[in-house]
């Protein structure tokens, strides 16, 4: 019946009565920030015409830039403990998510689970997650180049020629191998990914990342198959993590948010290797 809050001394996330993320407090800032899942319909084209191809393995091409919300109400469960606090969200039968904040971390983790994407309606779907904030990014956002420098991207612009985009969604998508970010003079928001994804900022303050796609037509660029992976006749299920950073865009007590992102990035991309050993024959003292 009221705002649900999880968090720690560094970051707090509020969820509204509909179960969506609604506000974030971190680094001395509180801002209305929402997160939701949506999908684009994949274009079904005539592949014999170069400018009218289907969305497929090589090209992301939404049908008339149509976007669909997957839910208006989200079922949530809340778990609070000493080490981690979690909100578990169920958006529909094929999209769910766990949002968690660990005790000592200054960022939040969004673990999404998407699929099997239904295609009973003969429509291919490309599912995205979108974070929307009030940051006045003025059409500028940043994507990384294989975890190295961040490259400045401007919506509907290219550096070396005058651009007229006929497809404003896909024409503004860029590869995101590990990070996408935007900021203004006050606040900064960044998402680290656990794998390469496509991403963009189609409105000021908003970041979107494509998490899963299932398409029914070949795009005629060579593969000769629709991007429709199945397992025992069902579409694939994808599970992954986004790490959400929010804070002041400048320095805070000598450590910038960007530096925190860098440190976390190493730990997330090169986590500890885990080896399990059966200890049936040893009690804890023998093991020691």
């Amino acid at each position, binding site marked *: 019946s009221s705002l649900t809050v999880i968090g720690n001394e560094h970051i707090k996330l509020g969820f509204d009565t509909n179960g969506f993320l609604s506000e974030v407090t971190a680094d001395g800032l509180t801002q209305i920030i929402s997160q939701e899942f949506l999908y684009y319909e994949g274009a079904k084209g005539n592949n014999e015409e170069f400018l009218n191809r289907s969305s497929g*393995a*090589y090209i992301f091409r939404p049908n008339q830039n149509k976007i669909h919300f997957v839910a208006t109400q989200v079922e949530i469960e809340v*778990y609070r*403990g*000493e*080490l*981690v606090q*979690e909100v*578990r969200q*169920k958006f529909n039968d094929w999209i*769910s998510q*766990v949002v968690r904040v*660990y*005790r*000592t*971390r200054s960022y939040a983790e969004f673990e999404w*689970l998407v699929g099997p994407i239904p295609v009973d309606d003969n429509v291919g779907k490309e599912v995205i997650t979108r974070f929307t904030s009030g940051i006045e990014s003025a059409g500028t956002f940043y994507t990384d180049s294989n975890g190295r420098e961040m490259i400045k991207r401007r919506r509907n612009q290219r550096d070396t020629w005058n651009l007229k985009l006929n497809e404003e969604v896909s024409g503004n998508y860029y590869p995101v191998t590990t990070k996408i970010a935007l900021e203004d003079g006050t606040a900064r928001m960044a998402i680290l990914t656990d794998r390469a994804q496509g991403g963009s900022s189609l409105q000021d303050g908003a970041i979107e990342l494509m998490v899963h796609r299932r398409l029914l037509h070949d795009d005629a*660029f*060579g*593969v*000769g*198959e629709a*991007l429709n*992976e199945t397992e025992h006749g069902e579409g694939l*299920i994808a*599970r992954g993590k986004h790490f959400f950073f929010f804070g002041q865009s400048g320095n805070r007590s000598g450590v910038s948010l960007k530096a925190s992102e860098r440190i976390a990035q*190493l*730990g997330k991309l*090169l*986590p*500890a*290797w*885990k*080896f*399990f*050993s*059966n*200890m*049936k024959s*040893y*009690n*804890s*003292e*023998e*093991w*020691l």
Partner: protein
Amino acid sequence: EAHLTFMRETLGIMQHHDAITGTEKQKVALDYAKRMSVGVRACATNTRNVLNQLSVKSETSSRTSEPRTDYIFDFKICPLLNITSCPVSESNDRFALTLYNPLAHFTDEYVRVPVPHYDYKVIDNNGAAMDIQILPVPHSVMKIKNKSLKAEYELVFFATNLPPMGYRTYYIEKLNSSENLCRPNVSPKKT
């Protein structure tokens, strides 16, 4: 060397632009996945041998000059941990988890381990009990898990001070297990 070379060759194949971008045919994608899986599994033998050499060496230097052979463990990888599945942790009341830090500096990590029960203790390499938290596996994940695996819970603990390019091991034990009742937690004589 043969294991490492298979993995080297596989990683060479994985540099193809279709493998990078996912524009390969489905059967090729499945073949790539199979090669990667075989390569990782083969190299797991190498990491197991290395970890056993390291642990035997430290045991030898600290207690006796004779090399020990009773500390050879099967350090298993769980490639399905990303979908909350691990046969070792799901089917054993006692197991050890070794964390190898590939970074060149100390690091820490919140570890999540799939387990079938809700009552465990975790001790670190100094014998100190760790703070733990148990959470149920989300319903949506339970739906997709291999039905033969039993983990309904995830055990969470905070592994700190993992040394640069080194390892730290934790002992994890189900409390009130039948094994404990039969075998009280005292130091038995070595045989």
